[in-house]
């Protein structure tokens, strides 16, 4: 493996002193531009993993290294998206997407003078996810899928090197979800940021990720690492191919043994 962009070295996590471990010794190496997925039973500490990597939560033991620096506090190169879209209801879609630029430097100080340029960038992003024409709508005027697409745009507008997704499509219906897989894949193939996707949807992991990590029940531990060699770009037809089915089936088998343990 080449030089790692994100590296977890013997990381352990417990939320409180004296409490049991939330994450058992975890080692991970993620290359720049790699798309990885973490799957596992609910409550196994998948989301904690994201908090560790983003620096929102310190590791109890071990080190987290991102871009050659040990993570000590919240990183500034992350985009994050969660299951609920957390768009601000008093802002239009466009203003919501622009929010990170009001915080992250150097955009923050340039936003006022180069508003036009940034708005163009946001509109371009909205266009890629088929939301052009909705930029002046408020979140409550959008469907769940549209909100989640806007949410993705917000996570990407500042061109983060690292995109952290915590079950971003979990609340959507199956059709919308699979549509958004394509959207995400397209965005990723165009921009090649590093993605950590936490999900309990094995098909989602198989569809999107280069590498899939299977985690155990709490305390979470990485049990398996799969190289997903299905060719890109992947499309909906491929999900009916035996290779795809086999992969999902194999993952499923592991999860089953994990849950039984």
């Amino acid at each position, binding site marked *: 493996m080449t030089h790692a962009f994100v590296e977890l070295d013997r990381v352990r996590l417990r939320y409180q002193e004296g409490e049991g471990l939330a994450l058992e010794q975890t080692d991970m190496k993620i290359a720049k531009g790699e798309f990885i997925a973490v799957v596992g039973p609910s409550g196994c500490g998948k989301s904690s993993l994201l908090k560790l990597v983003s620096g929102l939560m310190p590791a109890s033991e071990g080190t987290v290294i991102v871009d050659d620096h040990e993570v000590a506090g919240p990183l500034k190169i992350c*985009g*994050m998206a969660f299951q609920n879209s957390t768009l601000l209801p*008093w802002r239009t879609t466009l203003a919501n997407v622009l929010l990170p630029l009001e915080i992250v430097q150097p955009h923050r100080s340039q936003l006022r003078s180069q508003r036009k340029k940034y708005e163009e960038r946001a509109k371009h992003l909205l266009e890629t996810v088929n939301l052009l024409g909705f930029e002046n709508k408020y979140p409550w005027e959008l469907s769940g899928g549209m909100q989640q697409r806007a949410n993705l745009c917000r996570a990407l507008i500042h061109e983060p090197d690292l995109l952290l997704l915590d079950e971003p499509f979990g609340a959507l219906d199956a059709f919308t979800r699979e549509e958004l897989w394509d959207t995400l894949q397209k965005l990723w193939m165009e921009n090649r940021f590093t993605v950590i996707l936490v999900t309990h949807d094995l098909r989602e992991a198989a569809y999107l990720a280069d590498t899939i990590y299977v985690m155990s029940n709490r305390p979470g531990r990485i049990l398996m690492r799969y190289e997903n060699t299905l060719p890109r770009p992947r499309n909906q037809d491929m999900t009916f191919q035996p290779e795809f089915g086999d992969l999902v089936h194999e993952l499923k088998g592991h999860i089953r043994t994990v849950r039984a343990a």
Partner: protein
Amino acid sequence: MNRKKLVTVYSPWIASIGLFLIWELAVRLFHVPEYILPTPSASFAAIWQFHDAIWMHAVQTMLTTLGGFVIAVIFGVVVGAAVGSSQLIYAATNPVLIGFNSVPKIAVVPVLVMWFGIGTIPAVLTAFLISFFPIVANVATGLATLEPELRDVLRSLGASRIDILMKVGFPRSLPYFFTSLKIAITLAFVGSVMSETVASNVGMGYLMMAASSRFNIPLVFAGLLVIAAMGIAMYGIFSVIERRSTRWAVRGSHSG
């Protein structure tokens, strides 16, 4: 506009007029003497008869109330922001605030009179003391109930506490804030009139006190009606401001 909507729009007027009618009829029917309960017509007549005096005292009460209210808003926002954004400040000040809010403000008026003498200042301060609490509580609630995911999104961008407060906390607590203003302004009237009643020689409270000592009960009720009307008017103004500035939060109730 359909029938049902029409009824809804006029329902407040119908209800108020209905209440006055019942009141009027009941007083006449049971021959209630005027020094116990005057009819609304007599009370309105008193408003007309004493309108010069009422106007003067009403303006005084209005200014007193607004003075106390403005102080309450400033104080309430500052304290609410502090309490809502810091767990420590919340823990430290919550018992004090609740204790303070539980003290009947009428008991504080004599203290204020001792310090400031009778007149406008104790009335302004009483209005302030009685009305700041809902503002503190609502602003704090609005800030404290920020979704953890949203906080994470912003923090992972490197947002400072101030950033989060300015971009999300304050806009998000605006609806709570405006709700509290409606409550606070009506409470402020209670405070100022209360203080004027016991420790002033101007204002609606004083007017009613003076009227009752001269057994001019219609004028007392005239005063009550005027205070109620001022309260409704201020409440209405703040409702409109609320709806204008936080459309996103009330979208369900007036759309379609």
